[in-house]
């Protein structure tokens, strides 16, 4: 099955700054997804990223805050913009394939 690599694995950022998270898949995938897992909570879908079109955001998430790029079928980035402590979470990328949904190892973000 395909492998997905996510980086950085963790970061501590100052409020007001932005962080870009990268995900690389070792094969071409049509749909990639970005999730947030706040402390002690379940995963919430942020957006779906398809190559060649704008990402589709779930309710409560907007492009200005979480811009997403999908330049090709193996790569995507999520930027957390103008961060505040409330953005401290684990962010995960995922893709769907014949084996189901595979997740990256996550980026643990702490905003101070």
């Amino acid at each position, binding site marked *: 099955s395909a492998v997905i690599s996510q980086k950085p694995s963790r970061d501590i950022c100052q409020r007001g700054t932005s962080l870009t998270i990268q995900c690389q898949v070792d094969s071409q995938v049509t*749909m990639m*997804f970005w999730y947030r897992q706040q402390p002690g*909570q*379940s*995963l919430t879908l942020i957006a779906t990223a398809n190559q060649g079109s704008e990402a589709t955001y779930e309710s409560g998430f907007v492009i200005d805050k979480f811009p997403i790029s999908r330049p090709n079928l193996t790569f995507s980035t999520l930027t957390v913009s103008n961060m505040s402590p409330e953005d401290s979470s684990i962010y*995960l990328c995922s893709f769907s394939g014949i084996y189901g*949904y595979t997740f990256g190892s*996550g980026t643990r973000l702490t905003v101070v």
Partner: protein
Amino acid sequence: AQSVSQHNHHVILSEAASLELGCNYSYGGTVNLFWYVQYPGQHLQLLLKYFSGDPLVKGIKGFEAEFIKSKFSFNLRKPSVQWSDTAEYFCAGVRANNLFFGTGTRLTVIP
């Protein structure tokens, strides 16, 4: 609303006890259901999935789940838990090609 729900927030068991974690779904049409596990400090791993066919699904590490359409349920089971099964367990379903999760159940296994 299309969703999955997990009613057990925290389950504590002794080693060798049997496990059943509840998951209910609330949508019709094609049903694709999953169970994921997240061990402390680790990323999500797929335990098992149901797309169609045999409603009793065998997964990794001795886990299984049964899809019961009449009860809208997809409960996770294991006949004898081990301390190493201590983790967070998430039921998930698919809606418009998106995977959405239940709130999770924390399992603590006491040696």
